[in-house]
Structure formats: structure tokens, C-alpha cells
């Protein structure tokens, strides 16, 4: 089992996809670096990261099967 990455809001437009399966990563910083290399627009874009539906604020260890979500600022309502 790999890491599942979900993209939301404007990030779907930037990455051209809403879901991506990736091989295992040690942590969210490593994952984030790869994504920013693949989609450079992400570097100048504001977004939050959640691991298994919990928002994280600092680097976070990843395990196989984890679900990572990249989320721009919310705009419901």
C-alpha cells in the first residue's frame, strides 16, 4: 500500500488531478518537496496539509496507507 494524496479547490486546477497514488515517503516534508518539484505553481500557493483528516502544522511521519490532503484556504458558506 502506498500513500494517497488528495488535492482540493484550486490545487486540482494546478495539479490537473484530484487524487494521486505515490510510493511511500518518510514524511510530509519529503512528499511536499516532490510535489512542488512536479508542480512549481504550488510553491507560490497557500495550502494546508492534513494527514488522515488531521491538520498538521509541522513535518509529520508518513506510513503506508496514509491519506494526505493538500487544501487551500477554506471558502464554504
Amino acid at each position, binding site marked *: 500500500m502506498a500513500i494517497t494524496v*488528495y488535492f*482540493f*479547490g*484550486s490545487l486540482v486546477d494546478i495539479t490537473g488531478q484530484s487524487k494521486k497514488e505515490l510510493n511511500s515517503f518518510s514524511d510530509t516534508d519529503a512528499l511536499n518537496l516532490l510535489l512542488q518539484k512536479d508542480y512549481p505553481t504550488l510553491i507560490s500557493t497557500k495550502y494546508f496539509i*492534513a494527514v488522515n*483528516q488531521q491538520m498538521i502544522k509541522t513535518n509529520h511521519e508518513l506510513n503506508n496507507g496514509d491519506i494526505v*490532503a493538500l*487544501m*487551500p*484556504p*477554506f*471558502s*464554504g*458558506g
Partner: protein
Amino acid sequence: MGEKKIKNIFVEGAISSQKIADSIQSHASKTNIGAHSIFLGQVRADEKDGKQVASIEYTCYQDMALEKMHEIRESIFAKYELTCMHVYHSLGNVMVGEICLFVFTSSKHRKMAIDACSELVEAIKFELPIWGKEIYQDQTIVWKENK
């Protein structure tokens, strides 16, 4: 764990005034209620560079949004003496002038209902992973950001 009941708040498309009326009517039998407070979000025809918004398309991270909404609901019930609390949010396309958010609190006294409703609206706007994409009349898009 596994005991809690996660309610779905999402409805496809706009929220009709009939749905709101039905929801109000269904509380007539709860005779300990003295006050209802309702907030409705309506899609605005904002202008940008001479173009007008035609609709907003809403998407969400549903699992996380419903889990978070469950937490918000519990904390509001713990803080305010409410009889009832209902929240509905649109997904998909909602046209200008249509309702996209319906928050409804009821209590014995007005202060509890009003304060709870107001706090719920703030929590929904800033804590739920929902995104609105403004679609202009010429089909260009702008992603909303809540203030």
C-alpha cells in the same frame, strides 16, 4: 468509538425556501422552543473587471468536513442550551440569488439560539474543508477565500 452518529450536512445544489419552511414547520410540535435563529448564505453577483459572477460551484473533503462538523456540533451543544441544531451546505453548482448555506438553531430563550447560530456560522466558514469556485458569466473562474 464507532458509536457516534455522523450526520450529513451536504445537499446537491441550492437549498430551496420550501426546505427551510418545512424545517421550521417541523418544530411546531416542540413546545419547549421559544426562539429560532436562522442564518442563510446566498450567492452574490459580485463583479470583477466588469464581469459578474453567475454561480458558485462548491466542492469539499467530505469525510473530513463531516467529522469536523460533528466536533463543532458537540462543542456548540455543550456550550449552549439548545433544543435543536440543523446545518445544510450546498455542493455543486448554486446560481446567483440561490441559498447555499442554512444554519438553524432553536432554544427556550432567544440569547442561546442567536449566539449559537452566530458561532456556528463562523465555525462553518473557517473550519470546514469546503471550497467555492466563482464562475463568471464569461465562464472564467475565481477561487473564493473567506474573510
